[in-house]
């Protein structure tokens, strides 16, 4: 029995929750016509753990360990926004040194996140070597984090009004050494990847998003900046002390996957610049211990002044959130991470809505993979840079 050559059915393929790439548990149902993709439907929810519901029963300090599990590659950002929300709600000031330490940690976390984006992205395209290179650099960042915060990944380091503990003795020198080493590392990646003809063939012109389109879909982060729009919340909102450093917004015009790759590599370089400037300009002297918890209240010393006050406020769950609502955002490496907080005059928030960058950026995937080949799906998905912990929450 022969099937006439003109009769074709579309084939529906399931790229199930378990797949060889390292993006996490995302299920794609792809409708194919031979090698061309007709439609793609992402199915989420395989990692939905109820983070927003859990937040309604935890004080901020109790909730801090949960937030690093949203975006587990760039953990400092989730912690930063969790303390920024109550800080802005109640107008708590942060001393200068704590602000500098936060910026250093955030930028290190940004580098770590972009590195671990790069590895699986290249592995999906077929190049296995960068995967080993990034883990080598990421181990160095982990060592720095472990020296300062005690944990390699899930730090629980930020507190309302500052950070939990000061940097240990000698950390700053080690961090400067890391910055010098890492700049040579980026040069190595440039030599290996950026001018590689196979890489360019696979990535150039794939998944093009126009500038208007990017704004309409609500994209943020490197996806937006690769389409020609110079929108970086660090320059626009001027939070922490980013306006004291000299750095530039990385952006490209084309809007394809190559542009997104170049934006992220450029951001890593800019982060190193920011870290170096912050390390050199950190106030208070590098070895000063800020962990003053016990004041002698009888004596009226300068230690009761503002600069030493809210540092390392140990958890007694008395930080009350007043009955207001507020939206806070940071420029996470994947995009704009936001929290919409509705307080309720109690220690627990009434509503803790998370705006995850990965979830919003993932919406554009079905649009981008239409008319592409099957092999381009992984390239496009990789260049969107999602992490299922925050997409599903």
């Amino acid at each position: 029995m022969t099937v006439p050559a003109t009769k074709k059915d579309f084939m529906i393929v399931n790229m199930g929750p378990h797949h060889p790439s390292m993006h996490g548990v995302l299920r794609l149902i792809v409708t194919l016509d031979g090698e061309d993709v007709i439609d793609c439907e992402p199915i989420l929810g395989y990692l939905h753990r109820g983070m927003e519901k859990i937040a309604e029963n935890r004080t901020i300090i109790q909730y801090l360990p949960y937030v690093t599990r949203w975006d587990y590659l760039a953990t400092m950002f989730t912690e930063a926004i969790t303390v920024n929300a109550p800080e802005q709600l109640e107008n708590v000031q942060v001393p200068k040194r704590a602000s500098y330490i936060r910026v250093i940690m955030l930028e290190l976390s940004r580098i770590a996140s972009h590195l671990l984006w790069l590895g699986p992205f290249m592995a999906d395209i077929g190049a296995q070597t960068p995967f080993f290179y990034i883990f080598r650099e990421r181990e160095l960042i982990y060592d720095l984090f472990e020296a300062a915060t005690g944990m390699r990944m899930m730090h629980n380091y930020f507190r309302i009004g500052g950070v939990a503990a000061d940097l240990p003795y000698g950390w700053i020198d080690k961090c400067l050494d890391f910055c010098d080493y890492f700049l040579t590392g980026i040069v190595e990646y440039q030599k290996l990847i950026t001018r590689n003809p196979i890489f360019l063939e696979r990535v150039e012109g794939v998944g093009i998003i126009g500038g208007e389109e990017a704004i309409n879909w609500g994209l943020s982060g490197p996806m937006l900046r690769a389409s020609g729009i110079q929108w970086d919340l660090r320059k626009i909102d001027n939070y922490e002390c980013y306006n004291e450093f000299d750095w530039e917004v990385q952006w490209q015009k084309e809007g394809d996957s190559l542009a997104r790759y170049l934006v992220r590599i450029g951001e890593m370089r800019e982060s190193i610049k920011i870290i170096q400037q912050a390390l050199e300009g950190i106030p208070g002297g590098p070895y000063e211990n800020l962990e003053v918890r016990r004041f002698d209240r009888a004596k009226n010393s300068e230690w009761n002044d503002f600069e030493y006050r809210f540092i390392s406020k140990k958890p007694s769950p008395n930080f009350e959130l007043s009955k207001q609502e507020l939206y806070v955002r940071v420029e996470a490496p994947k995009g704009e991470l936001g929290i919409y907080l509705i307080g309720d005059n109690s220690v627990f928030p009434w509503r803790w809505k998370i705006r995850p960058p990965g979830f919003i950026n993932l919406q554009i995937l079905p649009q981008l993979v239409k008319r592409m080949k099957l092999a381009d799906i992984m390239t496009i998905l990789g260049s969107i840079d999602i992490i299922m912990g925050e997409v599903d929450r």
Partner: protein
Amino acid sequence: MNLIEFPLVDKIITNSVISTTLNDLSNWSRLSSLWSLLYGTSCCFIKFASLIGSQFNFDRYGLVPRSSPRQADLILTAGTITMKMAPSLVRLYEQMAEPKYVIVMGACTITGGMFNNDSYSTIHGVDKLIPVDVYLPGCPPKPEAVIDAITKLRKKISQEIFEDRTVS
């Protein structure tokens, strides 16, 4: 049957013959090349992936991460299992070929971890779904701890008796 002196065979033929039992040989061959499934749902997976990297190289234990469950004989459940993911995990476990081992990694998979209270969709422990050989606590466990779990699993395998597997 356990003599104190070395058996005669070892004294005569010194370097070219190893005498062992079939049981020990099969245990040794299985524990030296445990191929693990490249499986991970959330944060513990990053720790598992850093084991593949060059600092905590776990290829020296014979572990090679494979993507297909048909080619793997160890599954390290890394990452929270939710109710939506549970059928998928059980199916992966069933698709693995005997003999297969399970190391349960991280607090989320042992008892539900930090999602034990208040979370409506997390499964409180993967041992409700599949039989477990080694429990590895941590949130996430350090890569050295994962290697310790693999070492304990190897010790467990080395004490297995061949007939238990085939008869049951």
